[in-house]
């Protein structure tokens, strides 16, 4: 049943719908002999119509009073797209520009605001995708579960405008991003887009945990690396081989870790807003596959609609009443 009522006992008032069958509210005038009046289809139609309107008006009022509503519904849909979780870095460094400085004037754009702007566009472009947003800093932040609601996603993206937090803790963020896919039907591609400007070493425990999680949830992983000028790149080869470790070059080792996960993985090194734009366009192009998903429609209160129709019916009855000729 899709329809439900707030106060179902009021439905017993529907019995009142029989009243218009007995009385139409038109004052009868005496007539000597009805049988002599020729039968008239239009008049018969009118009297049926008046009764129906009366019944409808009472019925709708009762339905309105009993609080008719449409239950929450899930609608099955098929679209082009994917399940995408945007995993955003909220570390301090995201509030700096690509040049590694705090933005001084309106021309300079911080990495987070560039990401915000471009991701908003990205969300608008992906019509049928289910998107979720998670953030991470020292601890992961649950922002928005996988949803189709673009308005909510925009709001969630806009919320990252608040000043950033402390450090970069990728592994916990990633684990949270993966948890978004729990209890979701396995249809369409599952994508995690990691937007960060740096990385941190992943300890072996969390590395193991992530490997297990990713085995359970096969995903496509995109890493948009917002590289600050003069920071070590992904493919950096240090002069000193002793510097070639996870602590010194966390980005490189994160890249190596991602590469070793045996899932489709791509990294984009963006050193400017334009680079970020091209990375996002690339993802947009790559991930367009048929997707099977359920859309949730919230509970809808229908009592207002009932009252509207009831008042329409009553207005109709009033018009008919005004058409009545009464000479007695």
């Amino acid at each position, binding site marked *: 049943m899709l329809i439900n009522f707030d106060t179902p006992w009021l439905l017993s008032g529907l019995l009142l719908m029989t009243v218009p069958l007995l009385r*139409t509210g*038109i*004052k*009868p*005038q*005496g*007539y*000597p*002999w*009805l*049988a*002599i*009046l*020729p039968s*008239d289809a*239009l*008049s018969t139609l*009118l*009297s049926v119509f*008046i009764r129906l309107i009366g019944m409808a008006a009472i019925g709708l009022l009762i339905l309105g009073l009993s609080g008719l509503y449409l239950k929450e519904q899930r609608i099955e849909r098929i679209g082009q797209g994917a399940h995408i979780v945007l995993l955003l870095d909220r570390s301090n460094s995201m509030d700096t520009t690509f040049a590694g400085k705090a933005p001084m004037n309106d021309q300079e754009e911080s990495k987070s605001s560039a990401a915000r702007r471009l991701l908003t566009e990205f969300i608008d472009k992906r019509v049928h995708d289910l998107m979720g947003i998670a953030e991470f800093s020292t601890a992961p932040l649950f922002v928005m579960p996988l949803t189709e609601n673009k308005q909510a996603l925009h709001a969630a993206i806009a919320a990252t405008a608040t000043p950033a937090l402390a450090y970069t803790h990728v592994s916990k963020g990633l684990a949270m991003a993966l948890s978004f896919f729990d209890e979701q039907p396995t249809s369409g591609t599952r994508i995690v887009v990691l937007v960060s400007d740096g990385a941190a070493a992943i300890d072996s425990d969390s590395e193991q945990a992530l490997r297990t999680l990713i085995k359970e949830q096969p995903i496509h992983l995109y890493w948009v690396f917002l590289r600050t000028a003069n920071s070590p790149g992904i493919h950096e080869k240090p002069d000193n081989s002793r510097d070639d470790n996870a602590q010194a070059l966390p980005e490189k080792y994160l890249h190596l870790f991602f590469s070793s996960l045996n899932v489709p993985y791509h990294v984009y090194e963006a050193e400017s807003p334009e680079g970020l734009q091209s990375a996002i366009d690339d993802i947009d192009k790559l991930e367009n596959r048929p997707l099977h998903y359920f859309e949730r429609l919230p509970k809808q209160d229908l009592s207002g609609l009932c009252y509207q129709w009831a008042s329409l019916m009553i207005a109709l009855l009033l018009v*008919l009443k005004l*058409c*009545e*000729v*009464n*000479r007695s």
Partner: protein
Amino acid sequence: MFSTTPFIYRLGQPSTPIYPGAHPGRLTGAGQLFKTHVPLMANPDTRRIDLRASLLNPFQSYRVKVFQQHSQTTLYMIADLSGSMGMQGQSSLMRVMSEFMLSAALSAYQVGDRFGFIGCDADVSGKWHIPAGHHWGIVQKMAGQLAELTPVGSSSGLLKTPALIASQHALIFLISDFHFDLTLLKALLPQLNRHTVVPVVLWNETSYLDLPEWGIVKFKDKENGATRTLLMRPAYKKQIIEAYVQRKADLQQCFRSLGTEPLFINQGYQSEEVTRYFQARAL
């Protein structure tokens, strides 16, 4: 009290009662109109001996002239007091009925005839019954009550009225709106065929001419309480008027097939109309 004007009526066939009155009768006696010759022994009135007829008589006996005696007759009024007669209007049917009753009673009493009244709705009751006779006071009282009456019920009691009428020839005014099935009429009229019946169709013109051109009306049948909602419009009003015209033709056809001619009264009672009716045809 409204003024009562009598009408003049006459009978087509000679009346039978032995009491002298105003109508050509079957009996011989004191009268002006020569009827036949009879032997002196049959009518021993020497003043009336017709010598010429006696001489011409091959049996050589005296022939005496006899004259037709004018005799009395009886007027009955059978009134349908069913619900449909309760139509109010500028001329309420019960008021017309009451005027007709007074006028008929006066007309009868003027020429020495007897007048009786039988009112009926679903049944006949003693309340609305005046046996034939000369009861001007009672007639006046009942006419007053009739004008105030709000009738109810059906007109099925009409079938019981013939039993209340003496078998001697009478002139019967059958007053009703005849808003019932014609089969009732076809059952009633043969029971009255020894009498002269004048059906008086009492209609109120307002019930079909005075309908609105446009609008919604709901009519409730005065007799069975059924209701009908009508969407009035000029075309439909025309249909209703045509239905009444058709009904009038049907009634006329039905009455004529049963040997009477109906008198339609649509716009209040006028005694001249009744007089004209009697002058127009020999009953």
